[in-house]
């Protein structure tokens, strides 16, 4: 007899999706900046692609990460002893 799926699994699947989309966006942004921007003009004394692709974009994405994780992944209980808290809190 098939039983109902734990609602927390949807949260887990969502976290997987969010993480892969986020990293793919980061990867695309860094590779685009690195391969499309040139060495000149210099920015902060560094090649332009380094400043934007290797310093600014990682910092921006780490700040975005805080917002994405806190907003898009809801808190759930990890134990089974409180059935009313199984879903997103």
């Amino acid at each position, binding site marked *: 007899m098939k039983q*109902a799926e734990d609602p927390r699994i949807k949260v*887990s699947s969502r976290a*997987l999706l969010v993480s*892969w989309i986020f990293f793919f966006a980061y*990867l695309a942004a860094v590779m685009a900046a690195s391969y499309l921007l040139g060495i000149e003009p210099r920015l902060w004394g560094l090649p332009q692609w380094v400043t934007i692709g*290797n310093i600014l974009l990682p910092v921006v994405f780490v700040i975005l990460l805080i917002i994405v*994780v806190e907003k898009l992944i809801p*808190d759930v209980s*990890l134990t*089974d002893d409180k059935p009313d808290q199984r879903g997103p809190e």
Partner: protein
Amino acid sequence: MNAATISFLFYTAVLVAIGVWSFRIVERVPIKKYEEEFYAAGRGLGGVVVALIIAGGLASAGTFIAGPGMTYAYGYSWVMLNNFQIFMNLLLLAPIGILVGIVARRVNAVTYLDLFKARYQSKTVILLLASLVTFFLIPYMATQFVGAARVISQMTGMGYLVSLAFGSLVVLVYCVLGGMRGTSLATLLQGIVITVGCILLFIGTVRSAGGFARSTEILAAQDASFLSPTKSGEFSPAFAFSIACMTGFFIVGMPHAMLGALTYKNTKALKRGIWMGGIFVLIWTLLLCLSGVVGRSIIPDLAVPDEIAPWLAMNVMPKALGGIVLAGIVAGIQTTVAAMAIIITSSIAKNVLQELRPGVPAATIKAASRWTMAACLGLAMGLAVSQPKLVQWIIFFSIGGLEAATFGPILLGFNWKRGNRYGALAAIACGMIVYALANTVVPQLRLWGTHPSFVAVAAAVIGFVAVSLLSPRPSESIVQTFWGKNPYLPLGRFSGRL
């Protein structure tokens, strides 16, 4: 004795004290709770510690020694390649962290392989994974000892072997005595030391070079390809993408990083572990890699590129601060060794022992845990005596092998109900065969110049899906344990033979 050595010795003394203190805590725990305390620190770790355990575990000598070494040797192209690892906490904790947290509590899993046992109920899968994890992690661990010994040797002037013994024995003390409790406390201290050390090194290096603009001019005069994102064609975009997969998407397969997923106390800690890990790894990776390439404009003729970080620490800042930087580098290496030691020990002393001798008493597991850990660390130290020169390639080989073996069974197994033990075995076999061939007799398998792990993981995924679809579904009890509302499948009861 110089100021750098004194500050490093002080840091080491604190680590030993943590080991002894943790030992007292672990010894007070009742024997039936011992495994959970020793391997999962009572499953009560907060976000900062979880972030540091995963980030510190994954960021190894590859980040702290070889990272700046590669940027020194290849310029800014390798800064980009190393930056792909910044989100490893996200890519490990988000895809499986919540499910692992729920299932680990349901089946009382305290080790990495306990989860596989619950998911696949196969003795073959457990023994195979335990063997592969040990096979790939011990040489990986040895490279960490090599890195630490080189740093200590440069700092103190002691010989390589004495430095090796000094750097590794302290890890032995706090891991063997304190288990995960000792490791987590040490990791917290080490995380602070690493972060402070990286910031100090970066500031000292850029000041010493006369700023970025001057450094860039000198690098351009030395070799213009240092400023190129591909090192003038040496590292293609396809190669960069495969490195991003290895240190990003595939990282979920790294066993020693799974410790964080097994030990966090709630989803608030999990989420903090994700974004704090991003901040920590960003600081460590970016600052060290930039220091490496800027360091080339200060000293262009180092015979061993991997020595750039210790050289900078000892030459561009006051000695006492240099000691803190080097303690940070050694700390980064020690956190990796500690995490690996916990994983290997749990695989052998707990899972393999229980498979071969069901019903083994808790007291035997307790003794076996400490002896196994001491033996593994001793073996890795023994390998490190040979002083391998190509440390970075050994690290890449180990990471690729671990991911080829575990990515399919972990990511697909924990997110796809239809996956089964036959699929897991096929994934391990396909991944290992393709990885071995691509590294040896059929290098053409490295499609478009990618790293061998890329095609090996792809083969493992195809093997997992194809064989799972062609073989029976997993039992309803497994599905309920992992995805159902009404679980319960006690560990140790296997419904199948494989």
